[in-house]
């Protein structure tokens, strides 16, 4: 029954492709079995919508008259510092950047009301953004100061450029200490007061292709409401971690680096966020189609929240101090029930990742494919797999004087 991407694309163009979401495939496989489902279904669509800090956008603003070289100086977008260490009028803004005069955690927990993620959201929404730059001035780029409104429609290039998205799995965060802590996993109440998790679970892209057999460099994806591509494995890609019998990693494993034209994206799927006591970030919507090339691949996509395990980590002690201790494992099925048991205590759970938005993304992507508007791609090259030897190493500090 093996199919090829080319055959599936032919069916998509003819409007005959059978497409289901990673949620719908679960019942379909229960009802029809793997063999029959694999022969009927051509594509399974996945989705995730979650804070993804390693996201950024780069632009080329065009040359002013007289010219200015932003590099070497300072450039701000709505007071948020942008990175300009490239050619004259290229700049990049990271999702977690915050204004120089933000009070940060001086009064703890800091509010972090506005940052790079919000700038990206506003640009995508078509709002004017204030650019203020100072530079040193050269013979060929004499201008030293630039203050102007910019708008995404006038930029030469506006590209979403994400170093690490769509993490394959994530920790469940808890707090064993006696005081409330404010983390990137949200507010964690003392003495196991709550447990926060962050994954779309059974809908999440890499849980549906755990060994990266179809997702690789060049894969076309839903990104921020438009289309984008996988450019590389994401940073901290760590495919060799322990997995269960279904190939599902029990802790953080694979990640994806993504790129896409910001001009065709939508601010519903790129939302600037403020994480109390931590900082700013960007919630990103991603959907990856999985071509059903074999029964094996279909079987992976039928994964359920009950099959996926996450590890519980104490964010008051173990996480900040890079200790390997954990407080056990739970399934996403248990997490979604609203309560889990840790050390014999019932602990309420909450999610950072929006499951309903993940469903929406998988459904939109399904529609795009059904309508023949989105064709699948064959990877140009694979991303490192479970046996690649690629690992995520801690920093080996070497004191400068010693």
């Amino acid at each position: 029954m093996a199919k090829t991407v080319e055959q599936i694309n032919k069916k998509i163009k003819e409007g005959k492709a059978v497409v289901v979401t990673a949620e719908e495939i679960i019942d379909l496989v229960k009802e029809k079995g793997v063999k029959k489902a694999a022969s009927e279904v051509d594509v399974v669509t996945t989705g995730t919508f979650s804070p993804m800090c390693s996201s950024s956008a780069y632009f080329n603003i065009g040359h002013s008259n007289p010219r200015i070289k932003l590099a070497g100086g300072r450039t701000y977008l709505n007071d948020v510092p942008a990175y300009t260490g490239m050619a004259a009028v290229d700049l990049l803004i990271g999702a977690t950047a915050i204004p120089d005069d933000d009070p940060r955690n001086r009064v703890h927990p800091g509010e972090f009301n506005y940052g790079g993620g919000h700038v990206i959201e506003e640009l995508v929404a078509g709002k004017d953004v204030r650019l203020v730059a100072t530079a040193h001035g050269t013979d060929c780029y004499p201008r030293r100061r630039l203050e102007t409104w910019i708008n995404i429609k006038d930029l030469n290039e506006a590209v979403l450029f994400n170093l690490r998205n769509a993490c394959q799995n994530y920790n469940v965060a808890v707090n064993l200490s006696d005081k409330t802590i404010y983390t990137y996993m949200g507010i964690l109440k003392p003495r196991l007061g709550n447990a926060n998790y962050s994954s779309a679970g059974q809908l999440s892209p890499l849980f549906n292709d755990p060994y990266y057999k179809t997702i690789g460099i060049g894969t076309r994806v839903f990104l921020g409401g438009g289309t984008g591509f996988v450019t590389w494995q994401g940073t901290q890609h760590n495919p060799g971690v322990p997995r269960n019998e279904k190939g599902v990693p029990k802790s953080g494993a694979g990640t994806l680096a993504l790129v896409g034209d910001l001009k065709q994206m939508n601010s519903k799927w790129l939302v600037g966020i403020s994480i109390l006591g931590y900082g700013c970030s960007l919630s990103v919507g991603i959907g990856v189609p999985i071509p059903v090339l074999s029964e094996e691949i279909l079987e992976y996509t039928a994964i359920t929240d009950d099959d996926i395990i996450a590890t519980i980590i104490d964010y008051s002690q173990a996480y900040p101090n890079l200790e390997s201790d954990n407080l056990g494992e739970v399934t996403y099925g248990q997490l979604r029930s609203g309560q889990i048991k840790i050390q014999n205590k019932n602990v309420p759970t909450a999610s950072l990742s929006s499951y309903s938005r993940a469903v929406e993304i998988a459904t939109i992507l399904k529609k795009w494919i059904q309508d023949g508007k989105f064709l699948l791609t064959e990877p140009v090259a694979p991303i490192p797999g479970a046996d690649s030897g690629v690992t995520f190493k801690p920093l080996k500090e070497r004191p400068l004087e010693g």
Partner: protein
Amino acid sequence: MATSKRIVLRFPRRLVDRPIVSRLVRDYNLDFNILKASVTPEEEGLLVLEMSGKQDDYDKGIEYLTKTGVQIQSLSQDVTRNEERCTHCGLCVTVCPAGAFEMDTSTRKIKFLDKKCIACGLCIKACPPRAMELHF
């Protein structure tokens, strides 16, 4: 018939130093639970109460409060959700001490049950896209 409602009372400056709420117990047989109390820099008093008792007594109590010059507002008008901003992640669910957020198990969207809200404001800054709004 018994009733129990959550209300917001605003005390203008001239009433801030007078005992008013205590008469609800003494003269109107009402019980109340103070959910929040504050005095703003403009010296206006704000009190969030859960008030309960017989419907008849309740109505008389409200009439008394109104006559003294206290402004009364139903609590559900004070904390609202900006539906455009909410992404339905659900981080608010465990932050809220009153259980006013609940995941709908069929749609997986987060319901805001404003009748349960005690207007403590904890969700305001805990919400990453800042979808919850406080209108005091």
